[in-house]
């Protein structure tokens, strides 16, 4: 059915003067469950459906979308997209060019063992209620205790005027725990396994089960209460060790976003900002130490940003962004790849719904593992701080200066974790920070899923992945508050 509607829409677009057109038709199911303080805070099921048409007319883009998937509405939406493209062409400097990509007719489906949408709501809620109960009962100081589950499924159909026709079913799920405790006017937070509602993966319900929320709830609550007796993070410059659930966001903000080619080319200048990784630095700029290898990899199993094809129909790819510390690649679209003659898109274009315009979005931005064991990094550190689980984050519009806070930390003295510290924060400058990276683990390397990456105007929220383990950085300023 979608194939026929799509064909009609593309034929109409080309008849009305488009030199290129594509259509995405999709439906999203999103199950969101939250238990808070013994009660169901959210038991929600959200459905999104619709279609969007992109067209190039007179060398400029137009996009229109609607929730009503039928032939009549499709005709009107095509007409709008064409008319908008013509308006865009009033203000163009050059014609849009697209990189050549392999044209495929294909299907892709996230491999899953246990369909999260076939598991009963009761079963999921039982886990959440039990985990939340165990978390809350650790102390009367815990004022808010949360357990989370989210299951997501996107069925999307893509067709373009070059002959591509792709159907995909992307499924992901996950969850987590979070608690807030207050004592004598002081507030502390602890999350598991990561902030932002937990951890997520393109996988079946088996992934949510593997998080073992019930088994971990007690420890999370106990650790939270211990923070009240912990020392404040000292203000100093020291060696900093980040575990994966903080390092993932560090990669996201200071490598993921600045290597987006739309930012580097200035098309996000009005909102998210530009990038210090400007095109003349490609292949020449030392971004980090020789230990730092970072890839954009849409093919890695179970990554939250894993798919078969991006929203331009480009097959999922793995490309190097940073190789042995050198800046060597961008995340790109067909248009931006053509502009820099990159030889092809990185398969980086995604939209957060069929009603949204695809943008360059992170897939899985992974810091490749080193040779260390995580515990060896600690043992090798004479004086430093280990920080775990993100609590606050901020980075500038060129992605140079960042400041992060984490939920918990430990002082390291002579190779061992000593006392717990609270309110840890650190500040840095991207190339100096990554230039100081001297140890990367492999034993605890895993994919982390971040479901809430914001970008674009109008704003879009995308689900992305980051592979990493534990890493050490030398001479970092910590203790900002």
């Amino acid at each position, binding site marked *: 059915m979608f194939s026929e509607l799509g064909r009609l829409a593309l034929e109409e677009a080309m008849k009305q003067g488009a030199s290129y057109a594509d259509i995405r038709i999709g439906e999203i199911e999103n199950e969101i469950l939250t238990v808070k303080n013994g*009660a*169901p*805070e*959210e*038991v*929600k*099921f*959200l*459905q999104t*459906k619709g279609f*969007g048409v992109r067209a190039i007319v007179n060398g400029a*883009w137009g*996009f*229109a*979308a*609607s*929730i*009503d998937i039928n032939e009549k509405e499709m005709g009107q939406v095509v007409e*709008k997209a064409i*008319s*908008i*493209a013509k*308006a*865009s062409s*009033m*203000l163009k400097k050059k014609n849009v060019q697209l990189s050549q990509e392999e044209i495929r007719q294909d299907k892709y489906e996230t491999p899953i063992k246990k369909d999260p949408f076939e598991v009963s709501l009761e079963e999921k809620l039982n886990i959440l209620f039990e985990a939340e109960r165990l978390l809350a009962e650790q102390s009367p100081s815990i*004022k*808010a205790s949360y357990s989370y589950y989210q299951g997501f499924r996107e069925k999307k159909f893509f067709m373009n005027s070059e002959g591509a026709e792709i159907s995909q079913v992307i499924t992901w799920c996950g969850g987590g725990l979070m608690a807030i405790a*207050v004592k004598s006017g*002081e507030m502390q937070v602890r999350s598991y396994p990561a902030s932002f509602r937990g951890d997520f993966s393109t996988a079946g319900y088996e992934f949510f089960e593997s998080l073992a929320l019930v088994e971990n709830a007690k420890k999370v609550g106990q650790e939270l209460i211990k923070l009240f007796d912990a020392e404040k993070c000292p203000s100093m410059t020291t060696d900093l060790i980040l575990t994966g659930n903080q390092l993932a966001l560090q990669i996201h903000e200071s490598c993921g976003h600045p290597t987006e080619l739309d930012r580097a080319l*200035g*098309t*996000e*200048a*009005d*909102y998210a900002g530009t990038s*210090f990784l400007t095109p003349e630095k490609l292949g020449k700029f030392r971004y980090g130490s020789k230990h730092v290898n970072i890839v954009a990899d849409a093919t890695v199993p179970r990554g939250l940003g894993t798919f078969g094809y991006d929203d331009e129909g480009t097959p999922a790819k793995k490309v190097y962004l940073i190789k042995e510390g050198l800046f060597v690649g961008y995340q790109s679209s067909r248009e931006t790849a053509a502009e820099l003659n990159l030889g092809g898109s990185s398969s980086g274009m995604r939209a957060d*719904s069929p009603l*949204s315009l695809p943008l360059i979005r992170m897939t899985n931005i992974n810091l490749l593992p080193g040779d260390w064991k995580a515990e060896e990094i600690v043992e090798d550190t004479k004086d430093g701080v280990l920080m775990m689980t993100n*609590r*606050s*984050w*901020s*980075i*500038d*519009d060129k992605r*140079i*200066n960042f*400041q992060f*806070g984490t939920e918990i930390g430990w002082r390291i003295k002579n190779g061992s974790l000593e006392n717990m510290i609270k*309110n840890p924060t650190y*500040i840095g*400058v*991207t*190339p100096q920070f990554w230039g100081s990276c001297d140890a990367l683990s492999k034993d605890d390397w895993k994919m982390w899923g971040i479901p809430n990456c914001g970008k674009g105007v*109008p*704003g879009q*929220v995308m689900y992305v992945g980051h592979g990493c383990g534990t890493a050490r950085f030398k001479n970092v300023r910590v203790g*900002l*508050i």
Partner: protein
Amino acid sequence: MVIERLTEIVEKAVSATTNLGANQAQASAFLLENALTRYANSQIHQNVVSKNGGIVIKAFLPDKRMGTLRANTLEESEIERLAEKAVKIAKSARPDEGFKGLPEPEPWAPVEGAFVKETASCTPEYRAARVKEAIETAHNKSSIVKAVAGYFSSNTMYFAVANSLGVFAHARLTTASMKTTVISESEGSEGFGTAEKYTRNIKEIDPILLAEDAADKSVRSVKPTKIQLGNYEVVLSPLAVGTILSYLGYIGFSAIPYQNGSSFVKYFLNKQVFDEKLTVKDDARDPRTFYMTPIDGEGVPKKLKFLIKNGIVSEESICYDSLRAGKENKKSTGHSVPPITRWFYDMPVPFNMIMEPGDSRIEEMIEETKHGIFVTYFHYVNPVEPTKAILTGLTRDGTFLIENGEITKPIVNMRFTDSMLSALKNIPLLGKNQEMVKGTTVTPIKLNKLRFVGISSY
């Protein structure tokens, strides 16, 4: 007519849900028509229009089990199926003893001026023509202007809500906004400047004024110098103040952080926490607010509420929807966000914050500053420690050093990390001209001290 269609849908949805066994039900329906023309590198690069709409059904069973369903459809034939699903979700849930009931009906009246026909009928050609004016104006300002970026958007929102207790209300609203960011370059050094306008009437947007302002800041921003970190006096433009105030609304005045113990308000009740010159109210019926609406997402009439009164916060400052109000045996204050946002924002927040004006012009604030920083815009602000209202963020798009009452030079963007409780404790000068900045209406302000801890340079 759209509103008639939406009201018919919500009535039918409430009826279908109660017929299926829910003892209370709420349904809302919305239609959004959003258009946005985005430009960068002095040309249009994204130009979009979308029609979005849907139904949200909340079903409550007699034992206080609740289920919520949102679907992107306005087909009446779908209502029965969606109601069944909402009730099925509720049956799988567990009781929420904190739920004390949906809002009872209260009289409400539409607001004049929320919907502007010219905005609703804006064409892509109109938006492109205004963008062209902005780009040409900026380039005419100086030969060092390298690129112009920004967006021009026009939006129409229709919303209706009903519940089984007799609430039945609706609203329609238009919004329009334009942002212009100008990038200049001289001898390899870039300078940025930004200007924005928010209004319900698209005809009030003057692209030339915005472009002149942004270009002026941009041209003056090239070749910035680095200054020492530390405490500085600051003069904040309305764009910077709006960002700070909206974060205070999110971390401080919402019932959720208040009940969780993370809101700073909880620890400073009835205390002089801010300068006595600072009074902030929330009033969705005031024409000075951007999102002007007579009702909230649950159909509760919007009323005037003081968040900060002469620098003092109190229990009256907290914003509730019916669910969170029920947990404290209170009534909703009308702060449920209508389900018109893309991500179904389920947190009561003030989004019509209006800062009472003072009597100073921004030029006077600069004249009264001995050694300080002028900030056009704060980027990527986030809370670091919400109980102390500690925020961090960076300056952007026009940051200048003020010496002896004059702007003397552009400076490299800097990071602040500071408690807003201490920063806003002393506000020597408050502006007299208010501007809409999304959900806030603010004036420029001068602060005696803001702590800068980092610099955007390598």
